[in-house]
């Protein structure tokens, strides 16, 4: 399998973003906060899988940034099979140790998502990939927000969770095989 990550496609998903850190990351502003998303590193390819690591920062001027590290795993169809994450809040010493989410383990009732695929003429293969990335994002958002919501009443730190979820989908949309 020949996996490709398309940087230009990825960058186009972030409106008004700027390349930063010597071209290794992009930064964009949402609401009153700035976020940095690094391009994937430590890319490991086998004949049927690809793994990549992505760091994201919630930029906190004059204070230590919040850091998230994602390790994303893709199967032979370039569908997202699992994500592991660590979450570290700047300054406060709060962190979430490495946690793994596997698409196959998730059991949300997603009939509302699935039911529309056929009506809209979405191919089975695309549908399968969408279900997997959707499941992983919902699970990540639910699990992470339960913890982070207790850390502070700072809107920018909280909105970092949706930023991470959007980024998981955007990364996945930029991978092809």
């Amino acid at each position, binding site marked *: 399998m020949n996996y490709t990550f398309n940087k230009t496609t990825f960058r186009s998903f972030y409106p008004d973003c700027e390349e930063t850190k010597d071209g290794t990351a992009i930064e964009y502003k949402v609401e009153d906060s700035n976020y940095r998303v690094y391009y994937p590193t430590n890319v490991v390819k086998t004949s049927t899988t690809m793994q990549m690591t992505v760091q994201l920062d919630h930029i906190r001027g004059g204070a230590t940034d919040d850091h998230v590290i994602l390790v994303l795993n893709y199967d032979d169809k370039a569908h997202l099979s699992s994500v592991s994450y660590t979450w570290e809040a700047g300054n406060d010493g709060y962190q979430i140790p490495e946690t793994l989410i596997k698409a196959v383990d998730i059991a949300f009732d997603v009939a509302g998502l699935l039911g*529309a695929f056929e009506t809209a003429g979405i191919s089975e293969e695309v549908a399968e990939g969408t279900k997997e990335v959707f499941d992983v994002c919902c699970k990540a958002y639910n699990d992470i927000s339960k913890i982070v919501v207790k850390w502070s009443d700072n809107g920018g730190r909280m909105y970092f969770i949706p930023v991470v*979820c959007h980024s998981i989908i955007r990364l996945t949309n930029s991978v092809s095989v």
Partner: protein
Amino acid sequence: MNFNYNTFSSTLDTYDDVDVKHSSTNNGWFYKDSKDDSDFNLVVEYSYDDDHNYRTWRQELTTMEGNSGMLVSTKIDHIRGENQDDHLILMACYNAVGVICYAQAFVQMKNEDPIQTDVITTGDIPDQIHDQIQAHIKDDYGINGSTDGRKKIPHIAKVNLYSMAAAVSV
């Protein structure tokens, strides 16, 4: 899949007691910081019952492969003047025909326990978001607690979800 921001704000303005400010200019969307003309600096501000004020930040969108779904997120501020704003974060997903298929919300209020809804994927999703937040809203938040404005947060979440749904098209 598309999200029409003007449809969002004009729909919001149609709900009883919700009044979008400066709605005649750019459908109520304006740059929060007048020196920053980036998209995500756009906001809509509105009052409820003329007395309570809220701000919705421009929704962030990610479309899934082949227009098979769209994730939409936003932050909503309950504006409390001299006191720190309350924050409501909404995540929602629309399916390939543009119908809501998922939402989850959480609310942060200074010095109060955060409120988090379940992952909701079935039934009347905006209604359940409303009811689950409502179940945690207190009767009285004390001096400077903006009790009446906080009591409207469940309703604000619901009308935002309805207006987002109106804005989505395929």
